């Protein structure tokens, strides 16, 4: 019995740290609607800065707590810098575009942290006066854990007072509930947002700094925390600080007790819980349900697609001609890179079909790429299927994955839908990761090479080109078909679409299947290009890459994702081949691109090259 009580305390201590990070993310998202990937980087910076400051300020209580506080403030200021220099220029961009910018920041911070603090894990001092353990019910509990258990609720109370008892806080809450209304009320949104970023980033920094006595400052902290923080925010309910606290406690305790029963569950527990919560209570534990009757029209849906002018059509054909002629001039490596770029172009286009056309944001699109890749690899590995058959298995399996996941996802909307896609992708990932006998686990499946006729770089390039162009043609055809319009109708105005006899849910569900199948074909091609498949193909970074491609290109255009995919994949491979410091370069280029083209590359081209409509 006493054991369970102590385990409960341990869960609470973990919950406190998680809460600090998640509350910052929740506040930022609530007001600015920015999906801030850099929040994890701020957490990491909090730990590193606190480490450096403890070295300077000495080991006393003043030095330690001073370092924690200063680190939090410093990170808050870094957040302000990011908001003012970067995000402020992007608030008028299409929805989620800021995500790309924060992703650029993540990359830059990773290399800067490596350059500043070096590769080794840096173990900070223990908290003075709290470095020991006290005996509770015959078990030893670290004093610092008890301190964290107190700090969490204290921060919760301070935040509550700040948000409910100060004028600033009331404005923040107003803006959280209705950003447009707050703007109309004449609230100076600029500084409100800056303030919110300061507070949110400060909390991330504080969370990171407070980890110092428990965890060395290390370069994997950023990616380690960000997904968890999002999960906590979503389970708790967007913008609800109390919800974030409750969710952090739920997660912390489930983790602490879950490992007693299923020691291997930690890989997936978080996402299982999120999926269950989203299916049962889509708005989170303490969030407010969205309006029962949807709004008449979505806020930002772009303009009608215009057919390309003849000149552009010819340009497109010319480009295709160049692609067909490429093997005559390019070497094997260039052809392999070109194949990879084509594959990711299809991947991005499939994601765009859901996101851009269907208005359903997928944070877990890598799942379908993975289903396709594994569909092919498993067919080869277990059934001895030839490449041709395996490439048919890829879209089939991924399409079925889309049907299964989509069935749940289309019951939600907006960010909740996005997070459910993420949860499903992570569940699929962990299944593949742990099912050693069938999928080979994290050691993957190897020996997935193309049939002899396509084994050469040029042969495989032609195969990829043919299938990719065919799949892109089908997707494009679908965009301009009644189905594509029905999908857009459901996105533009669900209310109207349903009142015109369109079964929006069914249309969206089928869109999941179609998009999944297209991504799956890309995955199958990817497997044979690489000769092997590993769970990393369906991990979060691949989903993020897809999002960046679509958003960078321009979500409200048909060609945008293609441009984004070519630019991003090409740059990533090109830079990474030349230097080990590819992250800072790629991140820097992404930042430059979003600042130069705040509506995406294709959005920019559309504005500049096409006659504005009167």
């Amino acid at each position, binding site marked *: 019995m006493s054991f369970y009580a102590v385990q409960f305390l341990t869960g609470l201590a973990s919950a406190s740290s998680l809460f600090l990070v998640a509350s910052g993310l929740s506040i930022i998202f609530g007001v600015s609607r920015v999906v801030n990937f850099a929040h994890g980087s701020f957490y990491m910076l909090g730990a590193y800065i606190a480490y450096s400051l403890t070295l300077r300020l000495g080991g006393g209580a003043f030095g330690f707590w001073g370092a924690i506080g200063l680190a939090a403030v410093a990170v808050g200021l870094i957040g302000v810098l990011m908001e003012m220099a970067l995000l402020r220029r992007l608030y008028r961009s299409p929805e989620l575009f800021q995500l790309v910018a924060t992703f650029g920041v993540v990359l830059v911070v990773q290399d800067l942290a*490596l350059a500043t603090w070096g590769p080794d894990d840096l*173990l900070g001092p223990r908290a003075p006066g709290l470095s020991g353990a006290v005996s509770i019910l015959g078990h030893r509990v670290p004093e610092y854990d008890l301190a964290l258990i107190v700090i969490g609720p204290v921060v919760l109370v301070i935040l509550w007072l700040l948000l409910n008892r100060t004028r600033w806080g009331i404005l923040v809450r107003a803006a959280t509930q209705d950003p447009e209304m707050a703007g109309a009320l004449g609230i100076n949104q600029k500084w409100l947002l800056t303030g919110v970023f300061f507070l949110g980033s400060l909390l991330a920094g504080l969370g990171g700094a407070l980890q110092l006595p428990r965890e060395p400052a290390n*370069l994997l902290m950023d990616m380690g925390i960000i997904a968890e923080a999002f999960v906590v925010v979503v389970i708790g309910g967007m913008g609800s600080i109390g919800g974030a606290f409750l969710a952090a406690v739920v997660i912390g305790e489930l983790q*602490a007790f879950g490992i007693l029963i299923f*020691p291997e569950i930690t890989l997936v527990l978080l996402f299982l819980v999120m999926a269950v919560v989203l299916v049962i209570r889509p708005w989170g534990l303490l969030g407010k349900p969205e309006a029962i009757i949807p709004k008449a029209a979505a806020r930002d849906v772009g303009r009608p697609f215009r057919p390309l002018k003849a000149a552009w059509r010819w340009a497109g054909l010319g480009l295709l001609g160049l692609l067909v002629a490429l093997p005559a001039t390019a070497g094997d490596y260039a052809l392999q890179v070109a194949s990879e770029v084509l594959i990711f172009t299809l991947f991005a286009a499939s994601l765009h079909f859901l996101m851009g056309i269907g208005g359903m944001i997928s944070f877990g699109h890598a799942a379908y790429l993975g289903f396709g890749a594994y569909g092919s690899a498993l067919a080869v590995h277990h059934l001895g299927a030839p490449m041709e058959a395996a490439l048919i298995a890829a879209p089939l399996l991924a399409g079925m994955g889309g049907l299964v996941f989509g069935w749940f996802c289309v019951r939600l909307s907006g960010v909740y839908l996005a997070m459910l896609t993420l949860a499903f992708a992570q569940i699929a990932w962990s299944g593949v990761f742990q099912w050693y006998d069938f999928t080979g686990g994290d050691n993957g499946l190897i020996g997935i090479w193309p049939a002899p006729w396509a084994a050469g770089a040029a042969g495989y390039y032609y195969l990829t080109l043919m299938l990719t162009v065919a799949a892109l043609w089908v997707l494009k055809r679908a965009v301009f078909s009644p189905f594509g319009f029905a999908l857009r109708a459901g996105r533009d105005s669900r209310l109207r679409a349903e009142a015109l006899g369109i079964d929006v849910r069914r249309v969206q569900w089928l869109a999941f299947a179609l998009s999944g199948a297209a991504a799956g074909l890309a995955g199958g091609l990817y497997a044979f290009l*690489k000769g*092997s498949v590993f769970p990393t*193909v369906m991990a979060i970074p691949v989903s993020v890459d897809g999002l960046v491609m679509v958003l960078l290109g321009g979500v409200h255009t048909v060609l945008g994702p293609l441009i984004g995919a070519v630019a991003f994949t090409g740059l990533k491979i090109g830079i990474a081949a030349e230097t080990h410091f590819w992250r800072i370069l790629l991140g820097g280029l992404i930042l430059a691109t979003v600042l130069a083209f705040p509506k995406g590359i294709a959005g920019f081209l559309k504005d500049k090259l096409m006659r504005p409509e009167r």
Partner: protein
Amino acid sequence: MIDRRTFVTALAATAAIVAAVPARASEEPIRIGEMNSYTRLPAFTLPYRNGWELALEEVNAAGGVLDRQIEVISKDDGGEPGTAVTMANDLLAREKVSLIFGTLLSNVGLALADFAKQKQIPFIAAEPLTDTIAWSQGNAYTFRLRPGTYVQAAMLAEEAAKLPAKRWAVVAPNYEYGKSAVEAFKTLLSAKRPDVEWVGEQWPALFKIDAGATVQALARTNPDAIYNVTFGADLIKFVREGKLRGLFEGRQVASILGGEPDWIDPLKDEAPEGWIVTGYPWYALETPEHVKFREAYQKRFNDYPRLGSVVGYAAMKTIAAAITKAGSTEPKAITAALRGLTLDSPLGRITYRAADQQSTMGTFVGRLTVKDGMPRMVDWRYGDGAQYLPSEAEAAKMRPAE
């Protein structure tokens, strides 16, 4: 700060190596491809890079091999097998390398091993620990340098069997390396000590350990001894929590890789004393070949060598020896030369066994202590890989038919 200087040095060195065409070589240099997770796991891979750079400089200063300089084209795999294959294509198709070496992560190593088989190019898997790369998924073109999970576990199990402890609990990261490290240890220890009882298992996700809860859960099973496979930040968190909560008091701990400075040094004076570990006592290994290596390394980088440095150094020396033996830079000739190749490494003489293409490099097993504020291994001994590997006949049976 040392770290910033290391960074700048590394940057300059990379640039120099990639760009420099040795002035005195009359012929084109021999091009070698290299790859590792430099951005994903720099703590282990940057010392490794220093190691091969040092060996490269030595080889080239001595006139190269076959009267040609060696040039290394180094890539970052980002910890992703897919990226690794792209980079390998680049090395092979564009850079026209004769051989590829490197990699740390098991899945990256396996992806490249299969790539090597497909493209029929020799690949020296320098650091991956997974034994599948040498055995169940081994192939004719892949050679593995570092002692794998099995050898490390075997050395630990041998020491663990001497302990009175009967009730054992394990904690390992939840992925292939963790699984196979546990399986090997369990099998070997149970074989030596049938009376041993396995009372608990914890499988935290890699680099996401919930240390407090894990320590509590382990303590609850009341083991006499614990076998630890966690490393990196997980290990540090586990040690701090375990100490605070008294998990290690009155209990023996066997920890694989726990004596490698790459992973244990961040703990400094908080390193857990008394643990039985495999590792690398660079400070106390006074064999002539190691002293020579250590001094050269310290002089060159103003830093002490990690295990990764030894592996990187030995990998480059392997390449030089193989090309010399082959008398050619043809991939087929190098592959043939690598089979059964014997050379001197900082840890002594090693041989790439012809049957499974696994080197006989061994590792050290000893007890952990703290000296002058840093973790140190004491009572250590070197276990030659040849003593602990399955026999060549057995190993050959484990490999797929060619």
